[in-house]
């Protein structure tokens, strides 16, 4: 399945785009998504940390990703 990943902050700079398309297995989890992302964009591994949000909620590593989910990469936040 093809998933669109939204990017913000430093992740947008790493992708050089506000979103990217990624091909994932149908039973992909957040953990496998992060692995795939880091293979394509090794600079992600240099971040202090980053989380994945699925449908506007912080997701756990074992959560599954589905075809029409809204997926976003959340680098360390720094609002306020």
């Amino acid at each position, binding site marked *: 399945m093809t998933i669109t990943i*939204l990017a*913000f*902050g*430093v992740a*947008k*700079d790493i992708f050089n785009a506000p979103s990217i398309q990624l091909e994932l297995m149908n039973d992909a989890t957040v953990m496998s998504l992060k692995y795939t992302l880091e293979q394509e964009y090794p600079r992600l591994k*240099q*971040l*202090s940390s980053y989380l994945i*949000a699925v449908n*506007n*909620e912080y997701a756990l590593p074992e959560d599954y990703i589905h075809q029409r989910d809204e997926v*976003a990469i*959340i*680098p*360390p*936040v*720094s*609002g*306020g």
Partner: protein
Amino acid sequence: MMSSSLVNILITDAPLDITACSQWVMTPESGGIDVFIGTVRNATKGKTVLRLEFEAYQTMAMREMEKIATAAFEQWPLQKILIHHRTGVLQVGEIPVIIAVSAAHRDAAFTACRYIIDTLKQTVPIWKKEFFEDGEVWVAAHP
């Protein structure tokens, strides 16, 4: 913008209004209003900051702010909560964030206001870029 009678949450690229924010939380039952105003500082670790840029994941940031307001109402006897956050480019002295809380008694207002800004900084998906004379950096992105 999410606005009920008790909670007012906004992410905007327009300047924030301190007077309007403090007035919105005022109720006849209020004994005090606590307002936190974040301002753009001219330096980070001794280095001159020229300006900041804030970017938000709008829909998720609104939801995370609503969660913070709900959690504050569950923990303290509060009357109204307002959380406004600015996006875009801000110059030194401008206001990126206003938190306003009203309560019958000051202890709850002080404590909740601090809880809201501290939690916002930890959980709400908003990012700040600092612009220096010799470059720019996303805050907290790298170790």
